[in-house]
C-alpha cells in the first residue's frame, strides 16, 4: 500500500516537474503556399491606432469592401505589439499562421532568415502592380540587401521632435531646438516645478533601439560591421548610448519615472502638459486620442549636431514603418496576393495612412495633399532626405532585445541615482554583445 502511495505521489510530482521542460511543441512544417482554401483569408494587423478597438474600426470597413469586390472574407485579428513577434515565431514553428500579416519593418531581415515569409521576387511584385510603385527608402527596410524582399511597405513613419506649444510659450521659448546642445539647453529651461523638458520610454526596448541607432549614426557608428557581425562596443556606439541616457543621468531634463515607461506614458505626459518635448514617430493620432488639440503641439525635424539634417552623420531618424507580408504556408496564395494589391493600392493607401497619421510608402498616393500638412511635411522630408534603415541583418531582432535591455538597465541606474559613465555604458554593451549568437 505504501508503495502504491509512493508511486502515486511520484507520478503526480513527475508530471508537475515535467511541465518545466515541456516548452515548445507543434510539428515541423515544409512546403509553401497553395490555393486549397480560396474563400477566406486570416489577417494579423499590428496595433496602429490608439488602441485595438480603433484599429478594428479603421480596418473592418475596408475589409468589407475587399470582400464585396473579390468575394474573399478576411478574418481580422489586431495583435498588440507586445505579442506580435512571438505570435509570428510560434506560427513559423508550428506552420499554423495567418495568410497575411503586418510586421515591424525592422524585423524584415530576421523573419526573412527564418524562411516563414513569401519572398517578393519580380513575378510576385508584378502581381501587385510592380516594385517601382514603392518609395525607395521604404523598400530599404524589407530585408537583407541583395535578396528578394520579405515583405512590402504598408505604412511609413519617421521620428521628429514634437513640442508642447503651451509649455514653450510659458517658458518664453520661441524657437524649437535644432541641435542637441540646443535641446539640452531648452530642456533645462523647461524642467521645473515637477515638469520635465523631454520624455523617454526607458523600458520600451524597441524605442530605445530606434533612438540610440540614430545617435549612433551621428557618432559614425552602425552597431553591425559591414559583414553583419555585432559591433556594439565601438566608441561611437558607447557615446551614442551614453548621450541618450545622459538626458536623464547628467542633464536631468527627463523625469526619473520615465525609466519604467513602456506603454507610451511619455506621450500621455506630453498631452497633459507635464513634458514639453518628445522624440517620436508620427504621434499626431495618439495626441488626438489623448485629448490634445492639433494646435497645441508643433513638430520639427529631430536634432542633429550640425542643426542641418541630411545623410551620413546628419541622419535624424530611422526609416520607421510597417510592412505587409504573406505567410509562406498560406492556403490561399492568390487571395493573399489580391489582398496585398488591395492594401497597397492608391485608394486604400490614402484611406489607411490618413486614419493612422502615417505616410504612404506608395509614390502615387503620397502626392495627396493630406500628406503635406504641417504635421506630416517634416516627417515626409525626413524620410526622403535624412532617414536611415536599421541594420538589415538576420540578427536585428536579437539586437533590439539585448541592446534595448542594456539601455533600459542604464536608465534604471540613472533613475536610482547611480552614475552612468563611459565605462558602465561600455560594460553593459559588452554584456549585450556577448549574448548575441556567433560572437
Amino acid at each position, binding site marked *: 500500500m505504501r508503495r*502504491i502511495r*509512493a508511486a502515486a505521489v511520484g507520478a503526480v510530482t513527475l508530471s508537475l516537474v515535467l511541465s518545466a521542460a515541456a516548452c*515548445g*511543441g507543434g510539428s*515541423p512544417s515544409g512546403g509553401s503556399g497553395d490555393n486549397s482554401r480560396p474563400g477566406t483569408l486570416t489577417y494579423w494587423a499590428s496595433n496602429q491606432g490608439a488602441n485595438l478597438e480603433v484599429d478594428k474600426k479603421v480596418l473592418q470597413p475596408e475589409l468589407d469592401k475587399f470582400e464585396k469586390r473579390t468575394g474573399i472574407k478576411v478574418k481580422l485579428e489586431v495583435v498588440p505589439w507586445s505579442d506580435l513577434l*512571438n505570435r509570428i515565431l510560434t506560427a513559423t514553428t508550428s506552420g499554423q499562421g495567418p495568410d497575411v500579416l503586418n510586421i515591424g519593418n525592422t524585423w524584415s531581415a530576421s523573419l526573412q532568415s527564418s524562411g516563414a515569409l513569401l519572398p517578393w521576387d519580380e513575378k510576385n511584385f508584378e502581381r501587385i502592380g510592380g516594385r517601382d510603385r514603392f518609395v525607395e527608402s521604404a523598400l530599404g527596410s524589407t530585408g537583407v540587401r541583395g535578396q528578394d524582399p520579405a515583405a512590402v511597405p504598408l505604412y511609413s513613419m519617421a521620428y521628429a521632435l514634437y513640442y508642447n506649444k503651451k509649455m514653450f510659450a510659458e517658458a518664453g521659448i520661441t524657437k524649437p531646438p535644432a541641435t542637441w546642445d540646443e535641446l539640452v539647453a531648452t530642456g533645462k529651461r523647461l524642467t521645473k516645478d515637477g515638469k520635465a523638458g523631454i520624455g523617454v520610454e526607458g523600458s520600451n526596448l524597441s524605442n530605445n533601439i530606434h533612438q540610440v541607432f540614430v545617435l549612433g549614426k551621428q557618432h559614425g557608428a552602425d552597431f553591425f560591421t559591414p559583414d553583419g557581425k555585432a559591433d556594439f562596443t565601438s566608441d561611437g556606439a558607447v557615446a551614442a548610448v551614453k548621450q541618450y541616457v545622459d538626458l536623464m543621468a547628467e542633464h536631468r531634463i527627463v523625469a526619473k519615472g520615465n525609466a519604467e515607461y513602456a506603454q507610451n506614458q511619455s506621450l500621455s505626459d506630453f498631452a497633459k502638459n507635464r513634458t514639453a518635448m518628445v522624440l517620436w514617430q508620427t504621434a499626431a493620432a495618439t495626441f488626438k486620442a489623448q485629448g490634445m488639440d492639433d494646435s497645441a503641439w508643433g513638430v520639427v525635424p529631430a536634432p542633429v549636431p550640425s542643426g542641418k539634417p541630411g545623410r551620413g552623420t546628419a541622419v535624424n531618424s530611422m526609416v520607421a514603418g510597417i510592412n505587409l507580408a504573406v505567410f509562406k504556408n498560406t492556403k490561399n496564395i492568390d487571395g493573399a496576393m489580391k489582398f496585398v494589391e488591395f492594401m497597397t493600392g492608391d485608394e486604400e493607401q490614402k484611406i489607411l495612412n490618413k486614419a493612422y497619421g502615417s505616410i504612404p510608402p506608395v509614390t502615387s498616393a503620397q502626392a495627396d495633399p493630406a500628406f503635406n500638412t504641417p504635421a506630416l511635411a517634416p516627417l515626409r522630408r525626413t524620410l526622403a532626405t535624412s532617414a536611415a534603415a536599421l541594420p538589415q541583418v538576420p540578427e536585428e531582432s536579437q539586437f533590439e532585445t539585448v541592446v534595448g535591455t542594456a539601455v533600459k538597465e542604464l536608465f534604471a541606474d540613472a533613475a536610482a541615482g547611480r552614475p552612468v559613465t563611459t565605462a558602465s555604458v561600455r560594460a553593459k554593451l559588452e554584456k549585450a554583445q556577448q*549574448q548575441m549568437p556567433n560572437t
Partner: protein
Amino acid sequence: MTTTAIEKTGGRTVPQRDPGAEHGPRRPGRLRALGLPYLLLLPALVLEILVHLVPMLIGIVMSFKELTQFFIRDWGTAPWAGLDNYAVSVDFDAPVGEALLKSFLTTCLFTLLSVGLCWLIGTAAAVFMQETFRGRGLLRTLFLVPYALPVYAAVITWAFMFQRDNGLINHVLHDQLGLTDSPPFWLIGENSFITLLVVSVWKGWPFAFLIMMAGLQNIPREIYEAAALDGAGVWQQIRRITLPSLRPVNQVLVLVLFLWTFNDFNTPFVLFGRAAPESADLISLHIYQSSFQTWNFGTGSAMSVLLLLFLLVVTGLYLTLTSRGRKSADA
C-alpha cells in the same frame, strides 16, 4: 488527496474482499475487475503522454540541435549540435552560463523565501481559524480570494499598484506615510525582487492555508481536549499535537509549493514584461528569454532540460528522505 483515494483502492484489492473473488471463479468478471482500473486510467495516461511527455521529448531532442532562427520553420533540417548547447549553458565563466547561474541562484533564494512565507502565513492563519468565532466563514472566503482570482488579472493589478509615479504602493508609502525620501521604483532595479516576492506570497499562501485547514480538520478534537486536561498550553498543543499530525500534509504541500514557485513564469512575465530586471530574473523567464528573445531554441531547450534534471533530483531526494522518515516513524 490523491494519496487518500489510492489508499482506499489499495484497501479494496485485498483478496477476501474482492467482489470478483466472492463470486467464485467467474473469469470474465475477474478480468474486468483487473482491467477496469487501467481502462479508467487510460484517458489520463493518453493526455499525460500527449500534453507532457511528447513535448518534453521534443524539447530534449531540440536541446541537441542547433535550432536557431534559420531552422525554426523546419526543425528537421537543423544540424545536430551534440552537447554544444549544454556546454554553453554550464560554462559559468562565459556570459551565457554566468547569467544562467545567477538566475538559478536568484530563483533558489526567491523560492526559499516565498515557500517559507507562504507556509508560515498559511499555517498560522489555518491554526487561528480552527476556533469558531463570528465571521469565520467570511474571513475564510476572503483569504481564498487571491487563490480564486485569475493570475493575469491579479498580477496586472499589482503591476499598476507598483508603478512609481501613479501606483498605490508609493502613494501610501511615500505620499501618505512619508517613509521614503523619494518614491522608490518597484518594477525596475533591485526592489523588483521584493515586488516579485510580495506578489508571489500573496498569490501562494491561500493554497497553503486551504491545505492546512483541511489537514487540521482531520485531527480529532479529543486529543486537544485530553492534552488540555493534562495541562498543555496553546503553544504546547501546536508543537506537540498539531504540527506532528500535519507532517504528511506538510510534506506534500511544501513539495508542491516548491515546484510551483520554482517554475513560476506568469508572475515575473506579467510584472516585468519581456526583459526582467536582473534582481528578479527567475529561471523560467530566463529560459524563455534565451529561447524566444534570441531565437536560439536549442540553447533554451538545453537549459530547460537542465532545470528538469535539477528538479527531478531535488524531488527524488526529498521523497526519499521524507518517506524514510515516515517509515522509521511508522516502525
